[in-house]
């Protein structure tokens, strides 16, 4: 048991890292907050002035604003659905004793090692391209007109690419969870006459629920800020069809060189992400307390 002294010492020793972390977080946030109230455009840097809430109003009334929030949610939910369901299925498969299990497992998790822009480039030019892509070749082989994925289903295409990248993560977490399932429990259920589906529903799924929670929490954090895949493939278009909140901020700040507007967008995004996190923690985070 720690004495008063050791506790004080521990606090003192932790203090530097806490201060560094605080600065690490606080300074950029404070600067973003500051610039969000300034009229500051890089192209006319001499005309900096106080803007009040105008930047916020400007960002919020952007014609793409509501669609970008909707797209952000669709992206997160879509990718989560695919990765959780697909991840469970693949985890169940590669948990079976099969020939070449080690190699199969490495292959399954390998997409996770590909950097997002590279993955997006490959999907764009070699797989989904309506002229040269693999999908187009398949379509032509069966006598169909190739689909122009990024023009006709832009958001769906981005979801596919992102899901492909995050599937290994979900699979890996779920596979470790599966392997921690007590085999005696499984055998007992089997002896009691439970078939595969019953075992899956009444034993495996409850057992996986905590792992699924972890997957959902971690992925949501990353998926709210998807950017590289959109930049490389659709550039937020056609129209605003695949513009998410991150991309809208990029467009404002970097394409328009509008630092004030971009900062305001950043603050709005932080607030919205915290709302999502709050509900997420309440809805699924409960699982972690058990």
């Amino acid at each position, binding site marked *: 048991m720690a004495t008063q002294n050791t506790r004080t010492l521990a606090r003192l020793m932790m203090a530097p890292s806490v201060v560094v972390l605080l600065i690490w977080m606080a300074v950029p946030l404070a600067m973003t907050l500051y610039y969000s109230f300034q009229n500051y*455009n*890089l*192209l*006319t*840097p001499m005309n900096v002035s106080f803007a009040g809430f105008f930047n916020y109003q*400007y960002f919020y*009334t952007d*014609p793409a604003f509501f669609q970008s929030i909707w797209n952000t949610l669709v992206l997160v939910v879509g990718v989560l659905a695919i990765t959780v369901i697909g991840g469970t299925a693949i985890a169940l498969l590669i948990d079976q004793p099969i020939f070449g299990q080690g190699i199969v497992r490495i292959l399954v998790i390998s997409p996770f090692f590909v950097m997002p822009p590279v993955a997006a480039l490959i999907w764009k030019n070699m797989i989904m*391209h*309506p*002229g040269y892509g693999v999908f*187009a070749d398949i379509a032509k082989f069966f006598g169909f007109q*190739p689909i*122009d994925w*990024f*023009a*006709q289903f*832009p958001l769906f295409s981005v979801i596919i690419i992102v899901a492909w990248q995050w599937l290994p993560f979900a699979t890996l977490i779920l596979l470790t969870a599966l392997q921690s399932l007590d085999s005696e429990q499984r055998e007992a259920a089997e002896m009691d006459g439970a078939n595969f589906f019953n075992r899956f529903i009444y034993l495996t799924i409850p057992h996986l629920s905590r792992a699924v929670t972890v997957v959902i929490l971690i992925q949501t954090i990353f998926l709210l800020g998807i950017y590289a895949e959109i930049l490389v493939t*659709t*550039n*937020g*278009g*056609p*129209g*605003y*069809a695949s513009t998410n909140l991150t991309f809208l901020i990029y*467009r*404002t700040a*970097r*394409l*328009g*060189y*509008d630092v004030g507007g971009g900062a305001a967008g950043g603050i709005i995004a932080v607030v919205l992400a915290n709302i999502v996190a709050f509900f997420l923690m309440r809805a699924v985070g409960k699982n972690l307390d058990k």
Partner: protein
Amino acid sequence: MTLKTFLLGACSAVAFIATTASAETLTIATVNNGDMVRMQGLTSEFTKANPDIQVNWVTLEENVLRERVTTDIAANGGQYDIVTIGNYEVPIWAKQKWLLPLDGLGDKYDMNDLLPAIRGGLSVDGKLYAAPFYGESAMIMYRKDLFDKAGLKMPDSPTWEFIGDAARKITDRANDVSGICLRGKAGWGENMAFISALTNSFGGRWFDEKWKPQFDQPEWKASLKFYADLMKDAGPAGASSNGFNENLTLFQQGKCGMWIDATVAASFVSNPKDSKVADKVGYAIFPSKEGVNNHGNWLWSWNLAVPASSKKAEAAEKFISWATSKEYTALVASKEGWANVPPGTRTSLYKNADYQKAAAFAAPTLAAMDAADITKPTVKPVPYTGGQFVAIPEFQALGTTVGQLFSAVIAGQSTVDDALAAAQATATRDMTRAGYIK
């Protein structure tokens, strides 16, 4: 410290400063286009003649270059001694005092040899702020064999009506040949370059004299509808993601009957090493609309300029003078052949018999460049300069947003009317914020 050691020390310090000053290193930011990469390869010729100057290259893709250079210059970062910028940026940046005027290019430079349209676009108050490395306008490149097969003949001054009919006639979906390939990828320098030039030739304009956006006018409706219909009937698959490079590949592979784009493309499509159709390409001037006497007025150049933050202006101007001189052109010609010299900047090049012989596209290129007038891009009066762009700082963001809206039309995600209404709304909003509309 005795006086002697002090003097010795002072002398060596002066000597040290003198030697570092005599070997200056220029940092040059440039775009990864073929002509610039070639210039990089030939740099040793420059450093041989100027042993006191070293050159350090930063070569980037166009969008990245623009972002980095703009940020550096706007924040007065001083990373670069020479930057490669377009004629869109030059007048805007010169007015912001971000560039140094180029008055030390030397007596041999022959400034009067620069094409008037190009030189005008790079000057503010009569002073040159950037030296053109290569320049371009836009024209039609078409397949003579496909035209013959369809019984068509390209007129001297084609109209859009003719181009539309011809494109639909040539289209051969079974053999994967599209009648016409045009830019569809969103971006102010991508699809909006073409669409703005097209609309100029339809008599439309971006803004009226009071900076009110004009997307609600009949000219825009006519031009955008023409473009969207044409792309649907005779364009390639995936048109909404095709830019200059994608269309270049398609044309080189024989998959386009026509392509209307930058004149610099001519040397690529007529190069037998890369192009399957090299010997079948014909050239014609940018189309106009029946009853509207205006061709596209597309004018672009990539130029070298010295940021005001550079402390090595003298050496920088020396390099610029070398890279944009007649001697440099002759150097490229001697190493790579006349067809590969940077085009579109000097009158003397187009008078050169060797060049005319080596480049079948020389005469149509010059005609296209001479036809361009960025001070009068369209028949109605405008408050801005620029042919396929509007030379105001806000245009980059606005042009790209509008480009997105229009690319949605050919992707089949939006109608012409909806896209124009959205463009009108967003342009009005942006122009009001920037203070143009009171």
